[in-house]
């Protein structure tokens, strides 16, 4: 079920877009609240837009920034494009995997705090390697800098993590 808050935002969206053009934006509104698009969310958004679920699914699966699987509290977009690769992507990737306890990318840490995703060039090539955590850009990365950044997000995480757990519980 879409929440009242989500419905209000979706109604706002339809004030400036037709239902058809609003598909990806509508998914992003719901994703902003829930972190990802579950089958149930997809069903509800399709019903709201008057679209076939399968049509909306073709859009949901096409775009990189619409998540059809659950993600952690923070989404890390690690640039794996060419300039970052030349400038030391590999040691940065290794440190992230070690720190998050992941065998490979993409993946979500066991504490559900971070999801690590590969991303296309973030347009910060003069300060490569680069990554984003949520909407924040981090440049000139080194393994040591990865430790600092993750520590920062972890230290502010205690209350946030419990909120995220509540969010997941609500969906069930």
């Amino acid at each position: 079920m879409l929440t009242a808050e989500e419905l209000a935002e979706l109604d706002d969206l339809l004030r400036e877009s037709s239902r058809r053009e609003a598909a990806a934006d509508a998914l992003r509104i719901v994703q902003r609240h829930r972190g990802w698009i579950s089958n149930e969310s997809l069903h509800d958004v399709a019903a709201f837009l008057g679209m076939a679920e399968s049509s909306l699914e073709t859009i949901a699966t096409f775009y990189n920034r619409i998540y059809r699987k659950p993600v952690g509290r923070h989404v890390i977009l690690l640039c794996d494009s060419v300039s970052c690769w030349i400038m030391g992507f590999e040691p940065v990737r290794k440190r992230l995997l070690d720190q998050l306890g992941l065998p490979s990318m993409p993946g979500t840490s066991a504490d559900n705090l971070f999801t690590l995703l590969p991303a296309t060039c973030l347009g910060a090539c003069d300060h490569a390697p680069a990554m984003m955590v949520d909407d924040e850009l981090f440049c000139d990365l080194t393994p040591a800098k990865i430790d600092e950044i993750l520590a920062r997000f972890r230290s502010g995480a205690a209350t946030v993590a419990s909120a995220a757990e509540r969010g997941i519980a609500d969906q069930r």
Partner: protein
Amino acid sequence: MKTLTKNIAPGGEPLSLREYRARGGYEAFGKARFGMTPQDICAEVTRSGLRGLGGAGFPTGSKWSFMPRPSGKGSDHPGERGEGFVVMNADEMEPGAFKDRLLLEGDPHQAIEGLLIAAYALEATSAFIFLRREYARAEKLLRRAIAEVTAASHSGDHVFDSFRSITVRLHVSAGRYMCGEETGLLNALEGGRAQPRNKPPFPQVVGLFGKPTVVNNVETLCCIPHIVQRGAEWFRALGRNGSCGIKLYGVSGRVNRPGIWELPMGTTARELIEEHAGGMQGGRRLRGFLPGGASTDFLTAAHLDTPLDFDSLQKAGSRLGTGTLILLDDRTCPVGMARNLETFFARESCGWCTPCRDGLPWTRSILDDIEEGRGTHGDIERLELLCKKLSPGSTFCAFAPGAVSPLLSALHFFREEFERHIEEKRCSFKG
């Protein structure tokens, strides 16, 4: 002398509407709006020699001239007759390109002024900004700038009166490289998958929602206010070595000072790398470079004196593309670099046509094998065959030909490295 970047302070906040106007901002919009007809502006842009700076290099004036004019003669009431659209392509996703980010974050009003002049010149009713999702800071700054202009248009400010008849909408992409291709972008704006459309009909005739539409890159649109303000002759004269205008050139890779510089169009790669980027990092030697992002052909140190402009680079066997150079140094593996590039292209192929959808993962898997020491004799020939099957005319759009440009040229210039990987069954750059 700076033009496009004159208001950009590195690391600082961009100018507000009031500050931008205090430095002469929106004077060009006022001049266009009250002193020129749409046709005058188009003629000026054509004379300026401006070409599309998103990578394709199509003459901007010609692109604009294909837009039908329902009004016939020019009029000073834009938006009352036409039902066309103009779109700013701010979906900068080309690996190695980081110039549009600088323009959007550094001086959002310049980009919006360019877009508004284009909308007036093309008699468009709506203007869109198509921005990539990851440019979160640019999104915030653009929203603020649009709000400032909207507020000014409701405050009786005569310069912005016409703004009320042109809607400017910011669309934030859900993320896919194909959105940067202009017809893919239109499909994305319409709410669908960003697959390419057949051309003809060209977007200027049948574009967004079936209406005439012009799609221009951020940097291209940022040139427009200056051309209107100071004239086509002035703009042409800014170029060097027979080229017109200015260009934001970028350098990334193992140089001392990676970055972006506003320079005359036609500056050489040598000047850019050795003077502006401070030369190669200690002990490293330049082995090759991609002149304009991931989808351009490799050139080598032998091409350093080639002017970085559309025609000279085409003659040299590559493309200007985005004008952001990616350097390959002698301690970086050319096979690994080709593998990185093809991994990107295989991932971003939209899957619409078979050669691209299936061919690119195949090139990636052969490159994986070669780089990991599993290469076999015949792999190089297989890669060359795949490049041929993905060449222009074999696929639906320009994505796959762009994807194999760096690969085919790497096989040409660095062939011995590919052979050595296969012979020795290892990558010697990994120590």
